[in-house]
């Protein structure tokens, strides 16, 4: 995931400004760092050949062992490996397996790792490896290349960047790291500094890779919600909902299975009998796209049978909030008092028998800091008359009553059965078990955001975890993802994130203690100061996708207006931004690691409409991807074991994993840090040589191209051409990160797995709002339930009612079930999928060893009931097609696949298909207009946080024998 320099800064500036004052929940604990002691080595004799058995013994010998990991694979796991080096080659890797347990009664994390990590040594030297700068000499995508020197490549690239900047400003230079290339160390610092020094447009792909849990943003105002994976072991009822952790959480899955052995139940909700369902106690074969209906039916059961926890609901949710029955908006202070705040909302207090402003809501008069109810006893249910400022009266009711009425009207299990295909008894059993368990959790694989109405699924899941009082507790709640904070990551950036004004503004707040709301505001300010554009908006405006997404069959029939009107309104109001501006064109596209022509929906559109607009396409990669084949230049970077790096740290394991340099890169490949440093350097030098100085930068402010490299290096503080420079950068990162146990870059590299020993200063982008304690498992959102910190939403609660006008007109003010637009398509089958077992994204997809363990080529899974009438047999080649596009692959006829589904797992390279027509060609990924909403507390765009989702699931197709 992309880590913004700016997000690192928030915490540090705030704490610096506060001058060490006690900040409630936000002050990092800083225990002393232990000194690292490597495990003592044991001498063992190499053998001389005596008999056959010594051949085997000789195979298992090595010259040295170096710690490594797969820093830029964008795998959410982080696993420390020992890289065994033999004869100057990284020969083989084996898990380091040095993780300590949190508690005696909880299993340890060892050994972690997966089969991809276990053969990266092969991928690093495979056929797809790029070792020299290449220049295209044929047509794009033709595969005609010329090997050129770095100097020749960089000179030409720099000149063409300068040309574009002169013509249309630097916003016409697009930099895209997908999310594939993020790291916590020097491997990401280079491209981040390059993009910022040059003020390029940056693509925000977080939602573009379909990983933006919008339902969480809508409900909680945040989406980071995970702890350490061993916390799952302490759950009594684990629900895997829209996910396949047996493929995607290989290092962590054992905790779920081990939890079963201590008596927990494992439930898997999936249309297909998925590889994760096989070890469950209950599998719910819900019909695709109907998960919200299942969740809401469970809520109906819990409320009707009084299985919910009223105290939790009254304090932690908006269900007791008052809504006007005349206009369906929350009752606001501005309704009741002249000049009242429009973000002060009300509860009905049963003690006073009167309305009372809800503590913790955005406009509570105390900056919405604490949701503690004090002596207020909110009514959960009831209708009340309230006198308005104009003298009239209005009737109000609670969100709870609105919700209950809706559930009783439309989501009784019998009604949900007709939608979901599940038996009503099964739904009731599931709801009762979930409510009865001491602790229930929902594992929602990174939020499970790839369906059109994923946000509604998520809102339903969160509702269940709120009704049962699980969110914020050990072994409980909806689990999505979270990150470890490392304060020293400031060093990655080249410049300060906060303006002087912001620093001045934050001091008084910091003295009182910063809240999630404060971080949100700071983060928004930073999001406004860079030309960063959500991918879907970029594709709509600049890449030719407007025509497709505007088509009638991709519109949500429940919305009164057409997508184009929502887009227009959102752009005009500034809720969404687009760079370069609508009247200009992208000219240069530089991407690293990511593979847009593999990932983007109906990628043929980008090839046909966007690519011709680009004067220059540069791929910075270690391997030949499909998108790289369509580049003008390929700059070869070092493999993961050939450079220094810090893997981004998701919280599954309480360690920061570092990667040492095991060998030098082959050929002329260079580290990312050096490569992007050189790009900045050449731009500056060519600008000087050509006499170019100021061009239009961000928002057309003047930008001096001659000083790009000075900005990149902080006026010479770093020297990307020095091979050891990355270690110096890591020194700065670790020395300034009290929350992790390494003192320097070198020590961290020797450790491989650097233990987390405390809580980093918060950042909106990481924060799970729980302190880390290494004597216990770690779980999210403790601060809200234990310290009564207000959630960063309008209501200061987990908010299930959204009175944004768009949500009201779209019928989504409360969580509901809606069919996606393609439900009514004439094409009978639906394409589903998920991350695959055999590759991290496309990176391992063409590796022979991995292909050998599949069928050697792309496949789809189909049920026999769909195959027989079509005359399709196992192993047949088929054409998967609709009016948008098509691709061909081999069929696996599988009893485990649900009828009606065509399962195509993630990330085959288009060049593995006939005519390079990859599996996204028929994927139209209709766009949910409500995600463009803004201007409402938690509903608005901020980078990496709350953007319209790419929703590839459920494409409507037909399948015929090829």
């Amino acid at each position, binding site marked *: 995931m992309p880590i913004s320099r700016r997000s690192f800064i928030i915490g540090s500036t705030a704490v610096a400004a506060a001058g060490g004052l006690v900040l409630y929940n936000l002050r990092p604990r800083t225990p002393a760092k232990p000194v690292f002691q490597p495990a003592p080595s044991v001498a063992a*004799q190499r053998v001389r050949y005596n008999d056959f058995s010594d051949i085997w013994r000789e195979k298992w010998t090595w010259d040295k062992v170096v710690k490594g990991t797969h820093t830029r694979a964008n795998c959410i796991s982080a696993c420390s490996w020992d890289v065994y080096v033999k004869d100057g080659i990284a020969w083989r890797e084996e898990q380091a397996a040095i993780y300590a347990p949190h508690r005696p009664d909880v299993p340890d994390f060892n050994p972690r790792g*997966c089969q991809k990590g276990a053969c990266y040594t092969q991928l690093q030297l495979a056929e797809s490896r790029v070792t020299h700068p290449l220049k295209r000499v044929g047509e794009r995508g033709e595969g005609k290349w010329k090997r050129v020197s770095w100097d020749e490549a960089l000179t030409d690239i720099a000149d063409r960047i300068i040309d574009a900047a002169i013509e249309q400003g630097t916003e016409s230079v697009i930099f895209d790291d997908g999310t594939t290339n993020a790291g916590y160390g020097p491997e990401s610092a280079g491209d981040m500094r390059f993009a910022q020094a040059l003020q390029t447009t940056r693509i925000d792909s977080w939602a573009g890779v379909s990983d933006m849990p919008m339902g969480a943003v809508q409900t909680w105002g945040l989406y980071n919600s995970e702890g350490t994976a061993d916390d799952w072991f302490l759950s009594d009822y684990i629900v895997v909902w829209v996910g396949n952790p047996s493929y995607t959480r290989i290092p962590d899955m054992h905790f779920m299975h081990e939890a079963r*052995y201590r008596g927990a139940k494992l439930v898997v909700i999936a249309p297909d009998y998925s590889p994760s369902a096989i070890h469950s106690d209950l599998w719910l074969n819900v019909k695709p796209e109907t998960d919200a209906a299942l969740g809401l039916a469970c809520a109906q059961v819990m409320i009707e049978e009084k299985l919910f926890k009223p105290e939790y609901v009254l304090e932690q949710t908006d269900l007791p909030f008052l809504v006007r029955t005349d206009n369906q908006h929350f009752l606001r202070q501005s309704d009741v008092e002249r000049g009242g705040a429009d973000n002060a909302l009300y509860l009905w207090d049963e003690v006073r028998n009167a309305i009372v402003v809800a503590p913790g809501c955005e406009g509570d008069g105390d900056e919405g800091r604490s949701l503690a109810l004090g002596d207020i006893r909110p009514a959960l249910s009831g209708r009340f008359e309230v006198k308005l400022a104009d003298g009239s009266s209005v009737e109000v009711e609670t969100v709870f009553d609105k919700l209950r009425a809706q559930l009783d009207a439309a989501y009784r299990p019998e009604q949900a059965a007709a939608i979901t295909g599940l038996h009503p008894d099964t739904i009731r059993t599931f709801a009762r078990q979930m409510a009865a368990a001491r602790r229930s959790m929902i594992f929602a694989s990174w939020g499970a955001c790839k369906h059109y109405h994923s946000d509604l699924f998520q809102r339903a899941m969160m509702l269940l975890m709120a009704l049962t009082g699980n969110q914020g507790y050990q072994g409980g709640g909806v689990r999505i993802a979270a990150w470890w904070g490392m304060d020293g990551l400031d060093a990655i950036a080249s410049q300060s994130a906060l303006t002087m004004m912001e620093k001045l503004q934050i001091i008084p707040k910091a003295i009182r203690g910063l809240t999630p709301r404060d971080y949100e505001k700071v983060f928004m300010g930073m999001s406004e100061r860079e030309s960063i554009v959500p991918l879907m908006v970029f594709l709509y405006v600049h890449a030719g996708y407007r025509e497709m997404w505007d088509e009638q069959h991709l519109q949500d029939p429940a919305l009164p207006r057409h997508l184009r009107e929502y887009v227009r309104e959102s752009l005009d109001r500034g809720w969404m931004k687009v760079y370069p501006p609508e009247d200009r064109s992208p000219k240069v596209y530089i991407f690293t690691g990511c593979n847009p022509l593999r990932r983007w929906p109906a990628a043929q559109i980008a090839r046909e409409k966007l690519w011709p607009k680009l004067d220059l396409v540069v791929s910075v990669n270690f391997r030949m991807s499909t998108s790289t084949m369509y580049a003008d230049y390929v700059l070869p970077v070092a493999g993961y074991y050939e450079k220094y790096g810090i893997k981004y740290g998701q919280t599954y394991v309480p360690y920061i994993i570092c990667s040492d340099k095991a060998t030098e890169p082959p050929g002329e490949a260079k580290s990312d840090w050096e490569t992007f440093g050189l790009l900045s350097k050449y731009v500056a030098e060519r600008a000087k040589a050509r006499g170019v100085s100021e061009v239009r930068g961000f928002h057309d402010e003047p930008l001096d191209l001659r000083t790009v490299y000075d900005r990149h290096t902080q006026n010479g503080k770093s020297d990307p051409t020095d091979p050891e420079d990355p270690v110096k950068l890591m020194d700065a990162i670790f020395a300034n990160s009290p929350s992790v146990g390494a003192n320097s870059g070198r020590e961290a590299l020797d450790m491989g797995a650097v233990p987390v020993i405390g809580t980093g200063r918060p950042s909106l982008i990481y924060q799970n709002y729980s302190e880390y304690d290494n004597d216990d498992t770690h779980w999210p959102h403790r601060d809200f339930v234990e310290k009564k910190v207000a959630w960063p939403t309008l209501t200061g609660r987990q908010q299930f009612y959204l009175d944004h006008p768009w949500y009201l007109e779209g019928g989504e003010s409360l969580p509901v079930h809606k069919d996606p637009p393609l439900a009514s398509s004439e094409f009978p089958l639906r394409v589903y999928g998920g991350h695959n077992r055999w590759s991290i994204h496309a990176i391992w997809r063409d590796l022979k060893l991995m*292909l*050998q363990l599949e069928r050697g080529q792309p496949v789809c899974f189909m049920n026999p009931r769909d195959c027989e009438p079509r005359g399709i047999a196992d192993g047949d080649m088929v054409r998967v097609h609709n009016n948008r596009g098509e691709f061909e692959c081999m069929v696996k006829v599988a*009893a485990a696949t649900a009828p009606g589904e065509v399962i195509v797992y993630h990330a085959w390279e288009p060049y593995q298909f006939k005519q390079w027509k990859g599996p996204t060609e028929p994927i139209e990924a209709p766009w949910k207009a409500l995600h463009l909403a803004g201007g409402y507390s938690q509903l608005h765009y901020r980078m990496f946080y709350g953007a319209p989702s790419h929703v590839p699931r459920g494409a409507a197709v037909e399948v015929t024998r090829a």
Partner: protein
Amino acid sequence: MPGIKRQMAMVMDLNKCIGCQTCTVACKTLWTASEGMEHMFFNTVNTQPGEGTPRGWEAMGGGFPGGEAQLGKLPAIGEFGDAWKYNHEEVFYGGKGQDVHLGVQGEAPKWGPNWDEDQGGGEFPNSFFFYLPRLCNHCTHPACKEACPRGAIEKREADGVVVVNEDRCRGYRHCMEACPYKKIYFNHVSQVSQKCIFCFPRLEQGVAPACARQCPGRVRFVGYRDDQDAPIWKLVDKWKVALPLHPEFGTEPNVFYVPPSAPARFDADGRIDESKPRIPDEYLVSLFGERVLEALQTLADERAKAARGERSELMDLLIAYRWQDMFGGFDRDPQTIKWVEA
């Protein structure tokens, strides 16, 4: 056990196996990466029910069914699945654009070591499958050893590991016919039979086999068969929940499996139906023998006990709170070994 001092053994918990094949890859990169070994996987994982690797191996014969040696079929390389060749160079640098795509060159592949992955059996929604990892069973009564006219198959005295003496092997491949589990491969370059060596060079240094030590699912227990303080003996002999695969083959395997359970099945109306299991009993009996039903009952009873908050030694063993405790003392961290010249 005749002729050997001790016997190494392995127990694999099929309720924890997620089919990720890290074991397969760990073994592959360590032992079978060289020429002539491209198609070999000493360790495989297959989706059951399925035809497995080599294709249809369970019906190929061999071993001692009913106590008598049976002549088995010699599996062909195509039945294991050959190491396919690809046209990366042509696609990336051939200048042919979209007219060529990356794919297997030569004859279209018809089978591979994991060809029927995740397909399963039964009828939706009562489909079922599970993963079955396999390696050489290092049998107490190895059919391969008995079948070799050269005496080239040895059972190591120290640990009972069955190895092919490649100095003696002449490539007759009678071992491949005789092994009822079909876990022996033929090296067409060096013209010898090759198979899992239970990582004996690692055992000699106190390190668990790669497939076990590298298993992220924490599926595999390793140790001496008779070590009463370690998990193997407890799971196999004390709790009797770990069973050999196809005991009727008569070779007395030293690899054992904790049999799998599965989620509840549905009746015709879609209600949860607990009157019978999703994985048919007869299917599990066909794999693990009659004792499998008793083992499943023991597992269910002990799990219920744990759910009531009572202590269960069996559940604690299977949880494996400390990963290193799974390896019966073979728990040295290999990176601490520093090789010195002899």
